[in-house]
């Protein structure tokens, strides 16, 4: 029983890690008043970028390249949304479609439609001394690949930046009341541009995590809607970085229920588990309805300069 619970928690943290990266990035973007549906595109490009870089160089370099691949996609989104002021939702949808098609095309061109897939050895988990020996939780939370530990650092860092720095205040001001922010001399457009690029980098890291720390290879469409799920997680976490991280973990837990079910020997059609994340997202969004305060100018077109 303890074993099954340990496996369950480990699975929860594993699933939650890429989701948390993407969702934390999106949190910052949405706090600046932009909703980036193209996050899915950053994740899939980060996955392919990470794989190629990992095959050529070390793991650290691969994560940086994954992040930059995600940023490149976000740059395209940022140009359309902040400079051309296109509809954020439609632009984001197009960017996702573009990235899924592009990565699929590149991968098929490089390795053939059914040719030998490029595989890399995945990042090993490195147990932290002492912490990993905490009963039940230690193994799940502190015997993970190092990228997960990076996440533990990023959560408080984003919180501190958002709530304790001038730049963070400026960003939140742009999302809540752009007119006032602009009157105060803040360049709304520049803030949003920067936030989108940061969100893209985090999305890229999410994709990199999938490939470098988990799958060890790339598959067409392997992001499997994680970008959209991350956007839902931001809502569940009410746009607060710490809560968003816990929402991602909750989500990972729901997803890891299948391990618990398997351990219990309950047979359920496996498609139910595959569909579960999406159903849960819907239930979660409906469940918190009317009790959340979104950034006031989220997704709206505002005259920024």
């Amino acid at each position: 029983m303890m074993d099954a619970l340990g496996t369950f928690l480990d699975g929860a943290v594993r699933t939650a890690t890429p989701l948390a990266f993407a969702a934390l990035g999106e949190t910052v973007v949405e706090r600046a008043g932009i909703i980036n549906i193209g996050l899915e595109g950053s994740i899939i490009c980060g996955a392919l970028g990470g794989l190629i870089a990992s095959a050529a160089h070390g793991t650290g370099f691969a994560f940086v390249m994954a992040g930059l691949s995600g940023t490149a996609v976000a740059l395209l989104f940022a140009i359309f949304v902040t400079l051309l002021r296109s509809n954020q939702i439609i632009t984001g949808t197009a960017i996702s479609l573009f990235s899924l098609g592009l990565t699929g095309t590149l991968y098929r061109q490089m390795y053939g439609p059914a040719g030998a897939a490029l595989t890399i050895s995945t990042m090993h988990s490195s147990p932290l001394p002492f912490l990993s020996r905490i009963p039940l939780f230690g193994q799940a939370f502190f015997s993970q690949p190092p990228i997960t530990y990076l996440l533990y650092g990023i959560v408080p860092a984003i919180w501190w930046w958002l709530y304790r720095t001038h730049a963070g205040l400026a960003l939140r001001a742009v999302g809540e009341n752009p007119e006032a922010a602009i009157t105060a001399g803040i360049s709304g457009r520049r803030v949003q541009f920067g936030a989108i690029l940061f969100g893209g980098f985090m999305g890229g890291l999410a994709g990199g995590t999938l490939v470098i720390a988990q799958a060890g290879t790339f598959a067409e469409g392997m992001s499997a809607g994680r970008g959209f799920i991350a956007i839902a997680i931001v809502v569940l976490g009410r746009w607060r970085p710490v809560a968003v991280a816990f929402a991602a973990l909750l989500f990972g837990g729901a997803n890891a229920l299948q391990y618990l079910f398997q351990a219990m020997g309950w047979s359920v059609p496996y498609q139910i588990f595959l569909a579960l994340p999406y159903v849960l997202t819907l239930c979660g969004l409906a469940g918190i309805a009317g009790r959340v305060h979104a950034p006031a100018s989220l997704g709206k077109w505002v005259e920024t300069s």
Partner: protein
Amino acid sequence: MSGLALLALISDMLVRATPLIFTGLAVAVAFQAGVLNIGAEGQFLVGAAMATTVSLQLGPALGFTVIPIALLAGSAAGALWAWIAAELRSRFHVLEVISTIMLNFVAVYLISFLVRGPLQEPSHVYPQTSSIISSARLPLILPETRLHIGFLIAVAAGVTGWWLLRNTAGGFRLRLTGANPSAAFSAGLIDTERTARNAFLISGALAGLAGSVEVHGVTFALYENLSPGYGYTAIAVALLAGLNPLGVIITGILFGALETGASALQRDAGIPATLVSVIEALIILAVLAAEPLRARGLLRRDVTSVVQAAEPG
């Protein structure tokens, strides 16, 4: 190219265009009303599943009425799938973009479950259903080709949709709801909430019809990869047509040709067919990029003002 080969090529393009016209209309109707339905893909699949079920289970009993009944049932299932998102939108203020995308994934796994479980063909070898009986198959327009009357139904739907939007009170309410919801509401004439919901349901029904027609005119069975992303391509189809139903017929045929060509290129020249997604995305971006130019009067046709007005909030 011989005349016969040309005929086969053109009919293949129109066969491919048929689901794109239906789903393109689905997207156009929703976007016109300011509802950002990204869920045509899921509604297509659920519609296909329902229509297949009706034809498989009741086909022999229904005689010649099986086709209309199956297509109606498929449309209803598509509308039901959209209704979930419509309900979440109006009751819980859940952004329909997120909910419809989630429902797309749920639909994919629902089909996967059905074709490996209750609806699997009797030998239980292949992940697909049995073929529907011949009385349930859509008649061909041209003998010796694959072109079925579903194409004519799609064209008729486009023309009807165009006429309804232009000439009826309901069409006017729908366009006004999308163009300026607050004005439409405060004028006191239009229940914008209800209009948007109706547009959402019609959109789902059209996508469900697309799936039903695909099964009854082309594949004759349900299987997992029934749709190569028709519901997503539909967004490009609708936007390029400026959300005009008549335009959707044209752009649907255009994209049908594009995708038929891409399959041929993959087969003959080894160019990945996924490239089509890239081209489609670039077309959407090009339409968006042209928007500011239009706003400045540099282009005459005001194609996407409706899309701009469809901004959430």
